[in-house]
């Protein structure tokens, strides 16, 4: 399939530019690389987006023979996988700005300009300036605010009612995870991947492991794959319940928040009893998982989850019939489908805006290749739609868990992964959207380069879209419905 895709790409691009655009891949398992000359970069990107349906995911910046080389990682439409679009320094020393045709790349280009010290051509519109409005003021919130919120700074410009401009500064939690990984063994770097966001540790660890497994060219045994999906769905379920709790808290519905909190704690205890850790730390390993769970244990877990789900459904219908809850969420923080697409939003946030990107269905991996999954979708794009998506995805997760528990393959749960030099891309649909991890290793199996694009990092574009034009006092509610994690963005 990969070979066929490469041919397709070669034909499409060849039709316009002959052999001026190189299409190749380093090895059978590594992603296809498209390498146009500098002056063609933007038109090629446009062509890939409009004719082949590729969308921007992340920029990987590596050094090749001293000079930085930027790979724009693009995600294909249905089952097309990922390709790398290479960008090199132009004759005048500048790099081409792709964000002019792929707006989602803007934040990455800015970050690269700042951190890697390379220059992009200066074509960009000025940074979004405060709106000019008489009598308006900027209200700063953070970095220390509210009870148990993560550290971040928000600046809301307002005249008192509506938010004119919303901006956020994420720099307070910077732990340099990616550079910290350099020089470590992949087993040790995995611990860092897990801890970029402790609340979806399993998904991030899994994506990192998949990148390393792609380099080693190994496959996880079937039972390991199935159990990975099992743990990942438990994590998704718990993460969604936690977001529902936060939304209830933000609307001041204390009883509902307590009910959600009870379910969340029960899910944490269930994980703790299953594998030792309440947040599933130390479960995923390079090549599989560290602890096998026997079949009867899995059925028990599903049984208990059904009990939890009955109560979650009851909570959901109580919220629906309580006029005050969904009233507070409807028509606030609206993100249109066009914006979701333009900024390549991911996860439940994108799916609530009718932009149904779900890697489990679109880029199926491991166990998800074995069954059909229809992504949940809502179209309104407001806070209420985002909460509905969470409730519906919980039901979907339970369905997957039941399916996995009744058809667990036998055998080992972990395989050895040979240490090899090379690079690999791992992706997993984390609870809040697709997470991508790019790893380059040396022959000794040590990490040379590591970069990640987490779902929250990408969904922060949604923040100003959802805040501007809406009422100032909706800020905490909108923020809760977006379910953004600071730790995995400001890493």
């Amino acid at each position, binding site marked *: 399939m990969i070979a066929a895709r490469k041919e397709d790409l070669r034909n499409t691009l060849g039709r316009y530019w002959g052999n001026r655009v190189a299409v190749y891949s380093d090895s059978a398992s590594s992603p296809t690389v498209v390498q146009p000359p500098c002056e063609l970069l933007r038109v090629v990107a446009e062509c890939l987006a409009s004719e082949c349906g590729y969308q921007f995911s992340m920029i990987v910046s590596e050094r090749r023979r001293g000079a930085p080389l930027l790979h724009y990682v693009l995600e294909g439409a249905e089952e097309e996988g990922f390709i790398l679009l290479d960008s090199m320094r132009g004759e005048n020393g500048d790099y081409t700005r792709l964000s002019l045709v792929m707006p989602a790349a803007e934040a990455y280009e800015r970050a690269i300009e700042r951190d890697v010290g390379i220059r992009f051509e200066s074509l960009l519109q000025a940074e979004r300036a405060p709106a000019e409005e008489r009598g308006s003021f900027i209200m700063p919130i953070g970095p220390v605010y509210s009870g148990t919120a993560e550290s971040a700074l928000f600046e809301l410009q307002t005249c008192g009612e509506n938010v004119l401009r919303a901006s956020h500064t994420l720099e307070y939690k910077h732990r340099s995870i990616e550079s910290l990984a350099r020089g470590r063994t992949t087993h040790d770097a995995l611990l860092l991947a897990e801890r970029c966001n402790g*609340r979806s540790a399993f998904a991030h660890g899994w994506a990192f492991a998949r990148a390393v497994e792609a380099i080693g060219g190994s496959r996880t045994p079937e039972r390991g794959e199935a159990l990975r999906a099992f743990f990942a769905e438990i994590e998704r379920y718990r993460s969604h319940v936690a977001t529902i709790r936060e939304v209830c808290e933000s609307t001041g519905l204390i009883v509902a928040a*307590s009910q959600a909190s009870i379910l969340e704690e029960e899910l944490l205890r269930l994980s703790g009893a299953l594998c030792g850790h309440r947040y599933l730390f130390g479960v995923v390993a390079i090549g599989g998982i560290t602890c096998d769970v026997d079949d009867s244990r899995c059925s028990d877990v599903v049984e208990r989850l059904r009990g939890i789900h009955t109560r979650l459904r009851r909570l959901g219908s109580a919220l629906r019939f309580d006029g005050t809850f969904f009233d507070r969420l409807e028509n606030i923080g609206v993100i249109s489908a066009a914006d979701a697409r333009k900024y390549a939003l991911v996860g439940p946030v994108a799916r609530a805006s009718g932009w149904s990107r779900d890697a489990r269905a679109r880029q199926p991996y491991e166990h998800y290749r074995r069954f059909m999954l229809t992504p949940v979708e809502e179209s309104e794009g407001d806070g209420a739609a985002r909460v509905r998506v969470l409730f519906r995805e919980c039901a979907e997760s339970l369905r997957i868990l039941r399916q996995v528990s009744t058809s667990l393959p036998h055998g080992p749960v972990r395989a050895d992964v040979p240490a090899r030099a090379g690079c690999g891309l791992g992706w997993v649909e984390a609870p809040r959207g697709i997470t991508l991890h790019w790893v380059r290793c040396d022959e000794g199996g040590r990490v040379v380069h590591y970069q990640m694009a987490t779902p929250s990092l990408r969904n922060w574009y949604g923040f100003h879209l959802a805040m501007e034009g809406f009422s100032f006092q909706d800020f905490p509610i909108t923020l809760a419905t977006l379910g953004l994690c600071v730790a995995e963005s400001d890493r």
Partner: protein
Amino acid sequence: MSDWVLRGLATGVKSSAYPKRAESAEGVSPGLPEGADLGSLSSASGVSRLCPTQALHASGTVVAVDRGACVNCYRCARAPVTLPWNRGYEWASLTDEAVDDASRRLGRAFGHSLHVRVVDAGDCSACLSEIAQLTGPYYSLHRLGFFITPTPREADALIVVGPGTQRMREALLATYEAMPSPKRVIAVGACALSGGIFAESETVEGATANMLPVDVIVPGCPPPPLAIIHALLVAAERTAGVSTR
């Protein structure tokens, strides 16, 4: 609205009996390794070499655990030769400085009740999530007279999570300064105790103690809600902490 009241009442009491009685439910704690005599030189050095954060130190056949550095990776629990595993949660202790300096004690004036401000100095969000559980029905912190407050001016204790990122240093110190004295600082979790897995990062300060006078420490990655309750009880002098001497 009254519907919610009924719903709440119908749920019944969920609260843990701790600290009156030990909590026996499964999955309330991730556990921590215990030091042990493994009986052979090679097992002791073999196990201690597994640790990614150098929390294990072998001397002869005995392995000692530096709990503050353990990041719950479970390598030493899943190796061929394993360390015994402590499934409890009463892990908090007073720091040596807090024991020696009587002027740092809160004294009886506090009626054994505390208002607590939480500051995130770069956590991975798991520690904060465990703190958020504290106010939920299972742990209902309020029944013990502890309250999480949004304002430092009202706070008697400061909980710090995360490896102390440089960019949070100023905000953290400002929060501490804004609190009236006497006040206590509680470092929660491996990152706040030793920098944890991020200890070698160039953009973190490491242990909270590098920036503030710390009174109570509680290990774990993350410490479960019951361990944080234990830390609050130790801070309020309602129970003695784990002895570290």
